[in-house]
């Protein structure tokens, strides 16, 4: 089906292509503009000396077309903000076209990108009062990853524990339940309505353009779940004209490095195909993405199949007015492979554990997980000083598990009205006000049937006083469960940003909170042979978060961002072992812990003296204490280091990422604590890319040294995986 769609798109492209011969005596120059990593650059202005009025602009695929040009020698100039201008001379043929591909190098200026998440409005990165990490479209392309979580996982200070995202150690690991990080898709909340977790496969990577990671409490603008941070996945805008993109992936998993761990005779493979087509005019625009992927998995009983569709439309009835509709649907069917087999629970070959094999009692465990969202957004910029936005959204998740049999259908309906005013001169002042409502419901044999209603109002103002920018705001969240059990939480935040000769300093203090998910309140099941019982009386967990940061340009070759953070958490919701009145042990989510998470977050991006070389360094030191029991907080590693380097030479790029995670000192929820063989994470990824015209080929060797490790009990992290990704862009 997808192959047929690809041929149909190709045929359409051929039919709609301009008919040559319109200007027989002139010529045309066309080609692609890329950066040193091979990523296309949009909005590059192309002009020809002596040909006044003949100007071209590159599109999102980096393609430009300049003409008509008089035949003969001509000097072309390629210019874009933040890049060094490039000059090239060509001989324009008469009545013909010429292809010229150009690579632009970053200019000798420190760039300050615009972010839209930290203050719920657009602002320059160095005006945000909290730390923001960016995963740009260049990062996404260069790393050649397949899912959004793989892309986010390399951001400084971010660590995934078996799919559960942690920003500066926020969430720990609770089997994906109750994330303390809020996921947004184009600014719309997308955490599950029942478990409060995140379905990372809900948004196809192919529609993501960039990701903003806001660190620290963000509840003053976003409410529940933004206790530890916010991840905003921003999808691609739809360009004018007809465009297409196809991305094919194929690869293989390495076999276990030791024969005692072998579990199959053949080599496991993976593959996938995503096809996107879009058309845009000044009035309406639309895009559609279809995709599918298969993986044999790298462990026993680890196959997965996924199908996805995503679409986006935009209507621009007047300048400054835009109506956007978007949505996606993903069906993911996968075998459940964890936990691994411990001695005596499979053909263990005399070993204490077999990390590639499963417990024979878990044979046949399988889950089908369908999920999707629909969003409609109306935006209006009435003037340079006032804009408003209204949106509605529907998020639906549905999973069915076999062995053990379980299922749940959950919905989350949300709506928001927001206005931003910028009174006064320039950007001296800004005020954001909004109201937000949501309804979540679940029907499940694990959680029962319940509904929760939320209503919130928020506001934040910012004013420039001398060189400093001061901001203050708060949000009031009210919540009603099953028509009763009303509660309310106030989340204020204050911050200041001060540019100095020693960089731009930022200081903030804010309150974060997370309301218990319906699953945490009402779960009723068995785990580890024990009953897991509901706790309808759970209260919201809260935290005060403080941050002092400084962003410093390092000459003309780099940028250093350092932040000290300190979070005091109260009433944390954790799974707890307790006994009933008769003494029978059981598990229940309870408000028990007081915790303190503090540390240092460093991020360095540099382009050293070697032309074409760029490097990055991220380091997070985390001191996480459970104050109630005076012990290390579970599932929080102390050190997290990410190193990256990329080198570009003409159309060829090579690069590497190295990730070090210190050994996790304390775990909970393990069935056999004494036999837990955790080690530190030391994973090296290698990559290479080559571009020719619209075709981009990438080679990715993830975990190149086939380092065998786990982060959560009994769950093996991926082995060496070799992938080839071919991307064709029109």
């Amino acid at each position, binding site marked *: 089906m997808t192959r047929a769609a690809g041929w149909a798109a190709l045929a359409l492209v051929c039919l709609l292509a301009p008919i040559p011969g319109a200007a027989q005596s002139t010529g045309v120059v066309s080609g692609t503009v890329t950066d040193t990593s091979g990523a296309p650059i949009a909005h590059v202005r192309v002009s020809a000396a002596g040909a006044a009025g003949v100007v071209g602009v590159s599109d999102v695929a980096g393609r430009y077309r300049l003409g008509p040009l008089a035949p003969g020698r001509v000097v072309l100039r390629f210019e874009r903000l933040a890049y060094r201008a490039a000059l090239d001379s060509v001989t324009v043929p008469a009545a013909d076209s010429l292809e010229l591909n150009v690579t632009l190098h970053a200019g000798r*200026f*420190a*760039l*300050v*990108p*615009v972010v839209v998440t930290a203050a719920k409005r*657009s602002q*320059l990165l160095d005006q945000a009062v909290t730390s923001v990490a960016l995963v740009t479209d260049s990062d996404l392309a260069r790393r050649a990853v397949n899912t959004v979580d793989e892309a986010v996982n390399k951001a400084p200070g971010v660590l995934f524990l078996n799919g559960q995202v942690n920003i500066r150690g926020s969430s720990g690991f609770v089997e994906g339940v109750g994330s303390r990080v809020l996921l947004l898709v184009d600014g719309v909340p997308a955490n599950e309505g029942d478990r409060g977790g995140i379905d990372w496969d809900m948004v196809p990577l192919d529609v993501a*353009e960039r990701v903003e990671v806001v660190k620290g409490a963000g509840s003053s603008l976003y409410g529940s779940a933004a206790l530890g941070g916010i991840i905003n996945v*921003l999808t691609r805008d739809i360009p004018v004209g007809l465009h297409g993109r196809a991305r094919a992936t194929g690869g293989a998993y390495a076999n276990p490095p*030791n024969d005692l761990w072998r579990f199959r005779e053949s080599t496991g493979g993976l593959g996938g195909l995503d096809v996107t087509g879009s058309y845009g005019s000044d009035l309406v625009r639309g895009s559609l993405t279809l995709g599918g992927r298969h993986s044999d998995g790298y462990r026993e009983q680890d196959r997965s199949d996924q199908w996805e569709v995503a679409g986006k439309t935009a209507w621009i009835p007047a300048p400054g007015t835009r109506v956007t509709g978007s949505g996606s649907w993903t069906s993911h069917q996968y075998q459940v492979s964890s936990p691994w087999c411990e*001695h*005596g*629970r*499979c053909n*263990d070959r*005399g*070993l*204490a554990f077999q*990390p590639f094999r499963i417990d*024979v009692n878990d044979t046949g465990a399988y889950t089908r997980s369908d999920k999707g969202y629909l969003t409609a957004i109306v935006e209006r910029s009435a003037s340079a000083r006032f804009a408003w936005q209204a949106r509605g959204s529907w998020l639906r998740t549905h999973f069915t598990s076999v062995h053990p049999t379980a299922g749940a259908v959950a919905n989350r309906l949300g709506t928001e009205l927001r206005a931003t005013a910028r009174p006064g001169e320039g950007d001296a002042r800004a005020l954001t006000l909004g109201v937000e409502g949501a309804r979540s419901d679940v029907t499940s044999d694990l959680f029962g049937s319940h509904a929760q209603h939320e209503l919130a109002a928020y506001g934040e103002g910012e004013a420039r006083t001398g060189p400093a920018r001061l901001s203050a705001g708060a949000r009031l969240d009210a919540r009603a469960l099953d028509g009763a059990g009303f509660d309310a939480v106030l989340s204020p935040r204050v911050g200041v940003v001060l540019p100095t000769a020693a960089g731009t300093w930022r200081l903030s203090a804010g309150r974060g909170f997370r309301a218990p998910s319906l699953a945490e309140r009402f779960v009723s099941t068995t785990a580890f*042979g*024990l*009953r897991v019982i509901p706790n309808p009386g759970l209260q919201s967990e809260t935290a005060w978060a403080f941050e002092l940061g400084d962003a*410093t*340009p*390092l*000459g*003309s*070759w780099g940028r250093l961002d350092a932040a000290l953070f300190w979070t005091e958490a109260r009433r944390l919701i954790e799974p707890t072992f307790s*006994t*009933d009145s*008769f*003494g*029978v042990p059981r598990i229940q989510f309870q408000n028990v812990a007081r915790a303190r998470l503090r540390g240092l977050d460093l991020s360095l991006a*540099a382009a*050293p*003296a*070697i032309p074409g*070389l760029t*490097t990055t360094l991220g380091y997070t030191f985390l001191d996480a204490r459970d104050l109630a029991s005076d012990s290390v907080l579970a599932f929080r590693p102390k050190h997290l280091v990410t*190193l990256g*380097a990329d080198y570009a030479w003409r159309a060829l790029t090579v690069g*590497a990422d*190295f990730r070090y995670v210190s050994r996790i000192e304390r775990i909970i929820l393990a*069935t*056999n*604590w*004494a*036999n837990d*063989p955790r*080690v*530190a994470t*030391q*994973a090296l990824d290698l990559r290479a890319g080559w571009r020719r015209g619209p075709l981009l080929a990438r080679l990715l060797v993830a975990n190149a*040294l086939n*380092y*065998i*490790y*786990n982060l959560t009990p009994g769950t093996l992290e991926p082995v060496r995986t070799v992938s080839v990704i071919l991307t064709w862009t029109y």
Partner: protein
Amino acid sequence: METAVKLTAPARGLIIARMPSRVSCVALVAGAAALACNDGLRPTPQATTCPAGFRGICGTVTFRGAVPDSTQAVFVVAFATFPRSLSELFTFQPRVPTPLPLGGASALYTDTLPDGRYEWVVAVWEKQGVLTPQTAPTLLAEAGFFRDSSDTTKRGVVVVNGTGTDHVDFVIDFTNRHPVCTYFPPCP
């Protein structure tokens, strides 16, 4: 989508802003590679003694008889004192016991325990079903216990004192199970 950028003036010279050399870049990559060459998990033979740093008891249980089809799980747990009533039946340690592997003729078990004296180390056979205080007398049964080496008719005493106490070995006899109600009659 906003993609604008702002230009800022190049920074004045900072001490930490020295341009890194080619050598330091190569050293950085080499250092990362060297770190990554370190060992990860490796095949580990099944231990026969308590692991290093472990606090609790370890031992080998030898199985006798066929595992009943109705088996939910078998655990080894420890009581500080022999339970005197049904209400004390759930005062065992560890609070979340690890089910024993039942595939072979014997199995090594490890129970994480706080320091102290334990008068009854016992194998508990659990029948399939939902365990509650009401169902416990019929779902749980004793299937063997650690015995005093000088008088095997008596229960053996185990002491945990900051480390692992090894060789708390005994037999689990599936053909000779004693339901909880045997200890706390009447039986239904």
